[in-house]
């Protein structure tokens, strides 16, 4: 009521245009004689059917609160209440503004209340109106779940008639949008109640029931696991879905059934090598991508297919040769086509609206197809203008397209061959760098991850990227709140430092700053820590570099190493740290930082006797570097270490069962013999 009153200014402005007849209809709702009121509502019903202007007029004139009042009054006759519900349902069929007005007048609780009535005809009228309101995008779906008694009551009404089945399943299918909604419906036996409707004689009921299952099963393991065990008329649910995918069934039904099976498969309820996936769902989804289908269907088909095969290389291989899928997807980029612009504006408008969606769906599917198999990646990059399309996709205005394009690029960047060829030829690093300047986190994660691959040593794009000031950018990523971005930032730096020039290394250390470097060494995310150690290791390679860096940052690095070796860390982390130490031991002057640190030498001794062979190896390697003969002062170091008992340990290790460790120890011992 309150909300309706708020619209008063609007009412005045439009009032002049409102015809007298509209006002007359509303006036009759206030007639003292109930019989006249009923006739008035019936006349109103006939007047508004298919007449959007009339609907808007009546809403402006305040018919809705009065109709709701009459509908809720227990003194109203059942006939009147039913007719009121019918008229309200008719008003809801109009524009989105109509729906907004109805929702603002609290039509939903009123109609839900009406469902408690025992009369089926009235219930059906209320449900029909509720259905129309709930399937509108402007209605908050949460309104269905505010009152906890509503869902169980709807479940109990479900089987009352063909119409209750259709409307209620349609409401569920539209209002199940979150895992919480799924759980509420699941806990109220939605599966058991809706499953029998899949074999209903009514096409509409079957279709809505099927949609319910697709929204219930989406990314929901509990629902999916339950679904595989459901029998409908003695038949497994998955087989019912398979039948719904037959090629003579309506496209919407085929597509929705394929979604159900896809979600069940992704939840682990159906194996990916099950015939119903490999021979039915996958080909059905490929068919949905064909040119014969509507643009919306092609988008949904491609997205679902991408999701289905994402984790399974065998499905990716099959899809890659099914019905020319890879080249079929190239067509997704041809909207709006030059033809549509010429033929008619309506078509152009339609194409434009779907063009973004089509492009992002195609990128997603390419990304999924190419995520594992080198041959498929090659096939994708060889598709007409593929790299150009990705490049332009990276700078599209739509975030969805940009994200999908970078996902696709990321998937293809796992190929050494593509990095060496097409990626370089098309200078994909340029738009990628641009994308990294200013993008939402999800795009940044993908883009930086792709950049990691582009910075691999063998990638010809590495040089131009370095020249474009990427180091500052990556360093700033390491300061992100998102662990994924921190990992990618430091990872990219690590790749960049691998066998890099002195200049680059110095620049990395400078840009990152030792403070940040040590912050990363205490990062709560193990991945970040590992990559940071990897970076350090890459920085500390080749003797002059080691000495140079250690001379300026030796103290802090030794501190950090000590800290990690003393802390609670995984074997991998400690191994990596010992490797860094071994690198330091390889330096000319840097060695002294270890030799003069008895505490550190004790630590190395400890790890040489560790139960883990990897750690023993790394520690032995370190000692081996320290006692290496050809270098200045090797005699003193050998003596000192001998005094500390290292020779005995080395001797013991020459008897080790691990051949690598044994060899390493023998090599070290030889330094003493020479």
């Amino acid at each position, binding site marked *: 009521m309150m909300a309706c009153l708020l619209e008063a200014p609007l009412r005045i402005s439009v009032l002049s245009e409102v015809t007298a007849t509209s006002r007359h209809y509303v006036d009759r709702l206030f007639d003292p004689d109930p019989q006249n009121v009923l006739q008035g509502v019936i006349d109103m019903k006939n007047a508004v059917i298919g007449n959007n202007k009339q609907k808007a007029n009546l809403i402006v004139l305040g018919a809705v609160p009065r109709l709701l009042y009459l509908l809720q009054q227990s003194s109203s006759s059942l006939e009147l209440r039913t007719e009121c519900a019918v008229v309200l349902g008719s008003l809801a069929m109009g524009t989105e503004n109509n729906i907004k007005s109805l929702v603002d007048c609290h039509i939903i609780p009123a109609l839900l209340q009406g469902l408690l009535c025992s009369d089926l005809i009235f219930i059906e009228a209320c449900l029909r109106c509720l259905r129309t309101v709930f399937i509108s995008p402007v209605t908050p779906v949460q309104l269905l779940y505010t009152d906890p008694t509503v869902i169980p009551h709807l479940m109990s009404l479900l089987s009352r008639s063909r119409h209750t089945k259709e409307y209620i399943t349609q409401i569920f299918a539209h209002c199940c949008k979150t895992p919480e909604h799924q759980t509420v419906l699941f806990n109220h036996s939605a599966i058991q109640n809706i499953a029998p409707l899949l074999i209903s004689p009514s096409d509409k009921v079957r279709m809505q029931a099927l949609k319910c299952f697709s929204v219930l099963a989406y990314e929901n393991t509990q629902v999916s696991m339950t679904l595989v065990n459901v029998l409908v008329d003695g038949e497994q649910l998955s087989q019912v879905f398979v039948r719904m995918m*037959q*090629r*003579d069934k309506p496209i919407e039904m085929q597509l929705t059934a394929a979604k159900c099976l896809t979600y069940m498969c992704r939840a682990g309820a159906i194996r990916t090598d099950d015939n119903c996936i490999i*021979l*039915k769902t996958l*080909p059905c989804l490929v068919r949905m991508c064909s040119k014969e289908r509507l643009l919306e269907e092609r988008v949904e088909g491609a997205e679902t297919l991408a999701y289905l095969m994402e984790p399974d290389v065998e499905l990716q291989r*099959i899809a890659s*040769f*099914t*019905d*020319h899928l890879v080249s*079929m997807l190239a067509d997704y980029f041809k909207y709006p086509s030059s033809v549509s612009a010429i033929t008619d504006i309506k078509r152009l408008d339609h194409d434009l609206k779907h063009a973004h969606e089509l492009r992002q769906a195609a990128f997603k599917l390419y990304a999924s197809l190419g995520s594992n198999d080198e041959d498929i990646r090659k096939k994708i990059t060889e598709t007409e203008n593929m790299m150009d399309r990705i490049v332009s996709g990276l700078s599209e205005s739509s975030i969805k397209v940009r994200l999908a394009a970078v996902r696709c690029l990321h998937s293809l960047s796992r190929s050494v061959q593509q990095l060496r060829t097409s990626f370089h030829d098309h200078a994909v690093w340029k738009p990628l760098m641009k994308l990294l300047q200013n993008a939402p986190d999800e795009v940044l994660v993908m883009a930086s991850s792709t950049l990691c691959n582009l910075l691999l040593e063998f990638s010809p794009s590495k040089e131009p990227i370095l020249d474009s000031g990427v180091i500052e950018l990556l360093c700033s990523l390491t300061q992100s709140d998102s662990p994924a971005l921190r990992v990618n930032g430091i990872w990219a730096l690590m790749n960049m430092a691998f066998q890099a020039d002195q200049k680059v290394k110095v620049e990395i250390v400078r840009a990152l700053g030792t403070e940040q470097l040590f912050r990363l060494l205490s990062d709560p995310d193990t991945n970040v820590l590992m990559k940071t150690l990897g970076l350090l290791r890459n920085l500390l390679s080749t003797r002059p570099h080691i000495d140079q860096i250690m001379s300026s940052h030796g103290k802090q690095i030794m501190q950090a190493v000590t800290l990690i070796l003393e802390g609670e860390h995984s074997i991998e982390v400690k191994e990596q740290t010992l490797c860094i130490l071994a690198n330091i031991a390889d330096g000319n002057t840097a060695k002294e930082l270890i030799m003069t640190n008895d505490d550190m030498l004790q630590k190395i001794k400890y790890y040489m006797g560790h139960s883990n062979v990897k750690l023993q190896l790394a520690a032995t390697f370190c000692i081996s570097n320290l006692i290496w003969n050809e270098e200045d002062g090797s005699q003193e170091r050998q003596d000192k270490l001998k005094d500390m008992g290292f020779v005995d340990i080395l001797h013991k290790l020459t008897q080790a069962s691990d051949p690598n460790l044994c060899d390493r120890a023998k090599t070290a011992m030889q330094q003493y013999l020479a």
Partner: protein
Amino acid sequence: MSGPSSGCGFLMSVVVHGDLALNEQEKDLNQRLRRLYPAVNEEETPLPRSWSPKDKFSYIGLSQNNLRVHYKGHGKTPKDAASVRATHPIPAACGVYYFEVKIISKGRDGYVKYMGIGLSAQGVNMNRLPGWDKHSYGYHGDDGHSFCSSGTGQPYGPTFTTGDVIGCCVNLINNTCFYTKNGHSLGIAFTDLPPNLYPTVGLQTPGEVVDANFGQHPFVFDIEDYMREWRTKIQAQIDRFPIGEREGEWQAMIQKMVASYLVHHSYCATAEVFAKSTDQAVHEELASIKNRQKIQKLVLSGRMGEAIETTQQLYPSLLELNPDLLFMLKVRQFIEMVNGTDSEVRCLGGRSPKSQDSYPGSPRLFNSPVHKASSSQTYQTGFDSNYCNGVSSSKGHTLAHSHKSCPRTMPSPELGVLNGSRGQQTNVGAEVEMEVDHFSNGVSESSSNGFLNGSSTHGIDLEECDGDMEVDSAQSKRQLCGGSQAAIERMIQFGRELQSMSEHLRRERGKNSANKKMLKDAFSLLAYSDPWISPVGYQLDSIRREPVCSTLNSAILETHNLPKQPPLALAVGQAAQCLSLMARTGSGSCAFASVDDYLH
């Protein structure tokens, strides 16, 4: 030492078992082919069932009922390539055709595994792989390329090797072809295919072995699902066929066709009501329709003597001018005498002929001679099911069943009212009402014919049942001429007359093999102690009255310069004919447009 003998026994049993398995496979094959390609008339266009031992290059060896192909050449150069074609080309009436080839062995190591699966026209060189020449198409295993009448291939699909099952599907509606690998469709390979292609396989490596499946086993790929899609497409095309601006014309034409059909088969009451409600003129006098109706009913109830007499009265010159027709009627009369149904023998048998007609059914819906055997067979089934309310009572073995169903039909008095006072509004009402009952009995047919005339049919049914019950209760089993000695004598005498008539005819008009056979078949009935269960007993079936009835009706109409076939039947016949013509000229869509689907 029972070893050798038991070994021998074992071998024998294997052979026998093999034969059995073979028959089983044969049965499976026939069943599957019928299900997949129901529109194919195999007498005209046989389906491929195996590779042809006559249509292959010498380097090809066949085994396992000509389903297994192996290579026995040198396999050194492309000159050693060898192919084999199937026994028959793919008939267009398949609509969608499919076969699979399983790679049993990819051949000896050290060779490139050239192997092609595809299609070729008759006469294409067999010393080549499919795809290399004009009118030849292939998908090759070594590189996964498709070859479209050319020595250079196009990238098409994955490679294939031992254990893979490669399928080849020809769509004869849009003349395209796609392949499958292990049940997965690879997409269109060829377009604009010519007609009459043969399944073909080509090998070029020593040791290569492949097995074909032309329907002997279930296919790996779900071809039936693909066919469903095309059936739906074709049917939607038919349903949405544009009639444009001529919508009114269309309706008028259909009404005219229905009216003429009713008139043709002398459903006078219905015809008149229909004409009235659709504002049409009836092009034949009512009296004339009634006359034809009367004669038809006599023929259909087996009372041929009366039928001939009535025809002679009403249309004096008709039979004189058509001695062959008269002869046919007389032969039928002879058969009815054997049956004990002809009026002449009925009198002698002590049963006065009923004044009421006793033929149960309406004339067959469409008995135009245009129909092929296969299609009219289906009509017959439809017709038979019309009979579930007692019409089949003339067949002895279903008698008991028929009696049971009789009481469910309408009582006979209604019929009199209906037929007697046609055209009056009240009776139209009565008819409709009866129609409703008729439906609630659950025995109705949904054809418009059944709807409009079903009611009168039912009335007569009861009559027929009564008659048969009488016969049955009096005599424990069917007897010649109703069991009366006098009737038998009359029948034999009539037979002699018939014989002399036949001789007379031959003298006058020369030999007529149809007449001769007709007479011979009829006389053969007497050679059996129980003619009803004899090999020629089918003649006694009341269904056999229908062609006679329809021929006579057409002859009468022709003398009045009216078409001897109703336009409706003509249209149906034309549609059926059109479909078989489409099959012959290579339009595959005929596979999914059966006329029967539209006649219920």
